[in-house]
C-alpha cells in the first residue's frame, strides 16, 4: 500500500517534470522561427506542442537508455526516483527563473544519480554508462550541431547569396516551417522518452513490471506525450527570448540552417539511443549559424552564461536529488517524506511564480 502511494506521487511528479520539460524547452523549438518572423508566436507554440505529442510515439530507445543505462536496478526505489525528479524540477525552475536554456535531460539524470548515490553509494551508479551515453554525447553533440549549422549556412549563402533578398527570405521562412516541424518532432521523440523511462523505472522498482521483462506501457507513453505537449503549449517566453535573439540576431536563412542542423542531430542521436539535450544542440546550432556568417555577431558573453549553466546542471541537480532523498528519509521509509516534500515543492513553486509575475514579464520575441 505504502509503495503504491509513493508510486502515485512519483508518477504525478514525473508528469510535472515532463510539463516543466516542455515548458522549459519550448524555446528550443520555436525561438528561431519566431525571431525571424517565419511564424506568429502563438501559432508556433501550438504547432510545436502538437508535433511534440506526435514525436513522443515515434521511438522508445531513449526511454530504455534512461531506465537502464545510468543506475543499478537494485538500488532504485520509488523514493529514489521521486528525489531525482524533484532535483530535476528544481534545477529546471531555477534556470527558467534566470532565463537560461539549460538541459532538462541532464537535470533528470543528474537528479537520479544524486538520489541513488545518497541511497546506495557511488557503486550503484553506472559510471561507464554515464560517460558513454551521456557525458561524451553531451560534449560532442553541440559541436556537431555547430559544425552542421555552420557548413549549412555557408552552402546556403553560396547557392542563394547573389539573389534578391525578398524572395530568398520568404523562401527560408517557409523552409523554417519544415525544419521547425522536424525539430519539434525530434524534441518530442527524444525528451518525452526520458519521462517514460523514469516512470517505467519506478514501475520496475515497485514490482509492477519485472526487470527481466522491461517494456514501456502504452499508458506511460500517452501521459508523457500529453504532459510534454501541454508544457510546450504553455511556453517559456523568458528562454525563448534568450535563444531567439540574445545569442545572435538571425536572418531566416540562419534560422533555417540552425533548426535543420538541430533536428538532424537530435534525430540521429535518438536513433542510436542517446538521451541528448535538445537545448545544448539547438544552442550549438544557433552559434554555428551565427559564427559562420560573422564570428563577432555571436554574443559570446550570453553563450558563456549558457555553457556555465550546462556545466552546473548535472552536479547541481545531483546535489538537490541527494538532499531531497536525505530529507525524505528523515520521515522514515514510508510515503510521509515524499508527501511532505511534494507539498513543500508546490508551495515553493507558487511563491516563485507569484514573485515572477509581480516583476515585469518580458514580451514575447517578435523581432
Amino acid at each position: 500500500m505504502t509503495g503504491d502511494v509513493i508510486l502515485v506521487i512519483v508518477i504525478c511528479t514525473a508528469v510535472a517534470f515532463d510539463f516543466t520539460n516542455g515548458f522549459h524547452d519550448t524555446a528550443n523549438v520555436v525561438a528561431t522561427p519566431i525571431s525571424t518572423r517565419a511564424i506568429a508566436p502563438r501559432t508556433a507554440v501550438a504547432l510545436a506542442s502538437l508535433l511534440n505529442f506526435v514525436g513522443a510515439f515515434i521511438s522508445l530507445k531513449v526511454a530504455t537508455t534512461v531506465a537502464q543505462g545510468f543506475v543499478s536496478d537494485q538500488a532504485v526505489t520509488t523514493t529514489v526516483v521521486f528525489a531525482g525528479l524533484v532535483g530535476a524540477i528544481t534545477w529546471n525552475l531555477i534556470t527558467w527563473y534566470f532565463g537560461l536554456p539549460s538541459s532538462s535531460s541532464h537535470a533528470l539524470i543528474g537528479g537520479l544519480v544524486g538520489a541513488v548515490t545518497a541511497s546506495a553509494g557511488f557503486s550503484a551508479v553506472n559510471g561507464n554508462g554515464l560517460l558513454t551515453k551521456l557525458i561524451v554525447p553531451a560534449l560532442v553533440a553541440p559541436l556537431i550541431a555547430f559544425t552542421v549549422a555552420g557548413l549549412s549556412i555557408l552552402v546556403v549563402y553560396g547557392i542563394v547569396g547573389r539573389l534578391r533578398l525578398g524572395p530568398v527570405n520568404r523562401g527560408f521562412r517557409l523552409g523554417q516551417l519544415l525544419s521547425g516541424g522536424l525539430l519539434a518532432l525530434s524534441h518530442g521523440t527524444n525528451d518525452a522518452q526520458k519521462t517514460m523511462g523514469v516512470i517505467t523505472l519506478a514501475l520496475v522498482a515497485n514490482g509492477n513490471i519485472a526487470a527481466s521483462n522491461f517494456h514501456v506501457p502504452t499508458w506511460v507513453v500517452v501521459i508523457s506525450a500529453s504532459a510534454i505537449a501541454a508544457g510546450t503549449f504553455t511556453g517559456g517566453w523568458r528562454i525563448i527570448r534568450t535563444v531567439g535573439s540574445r545569442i545572435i540576431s538571425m536572418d531566416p536563412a540562419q534560422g533555417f540552417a540552425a533548426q535543420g542542423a538541430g533536428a538532424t542531430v537530435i534525430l540521429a542521436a535518438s536513433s542510436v539511443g542517446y538521451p541528448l539535450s535538445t537545448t545544448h544542440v539547438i544552442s550549438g546550432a544557433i552559434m554555428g549559424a551565427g559564427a559562420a556568417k560573422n564570428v563577432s555577431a555571436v554574443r559570446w558573453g550570453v553563450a558563456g552564461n549558457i555553457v556555465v549553466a550546462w556545466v552546473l546542471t548535472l552536479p547541481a541537480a545531483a546535489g538537490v536529488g541527494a538532499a531531497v532523498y536525505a530529507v525524505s528519509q528523515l520521515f522514515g521509509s514510508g510515503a510521509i517524506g515524499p508527501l511532505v516534500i511534494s507539498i513543500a515543492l508546490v508551495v515553493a513553486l507558487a511563491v516563485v511564480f507569484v514573485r515572477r509575475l509581480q516583476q515585469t514579464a518580458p514580451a514575447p520575441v517578435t523581432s
Partner: protein
Amino acid sequence: MIRAAVDAGALVKMLYSSLLAGLSVSIVVSLAIYGVTRSSDMRRLHRGGAATAYAVLALVAAALTAALVVYGLILLTRK
C-alpha cells in the same frame, strides 16, 4: 581507456548521419528557393525557356526535400 569506454560506432554514426542529412536538406531547400527566384526573374525578362528550366529545378529540389524528410522519418520509426 576513455576511447575504449566510448561507443565510437554510435558516435560516428550520429556524426555522419547529422552531416549528411543536415547538409542535404540545406542544399535541396536552397536549390528550390534558387529555382523559384531565378524562374521569376527570367519570366520578368521574357525568357520563357530559362524560366521553365529554373521552375523544373525548383520542383525537383522541392520533391527531393520532401523525399529526404520522409526517408528520415521512416528510418527513425524503424528503430
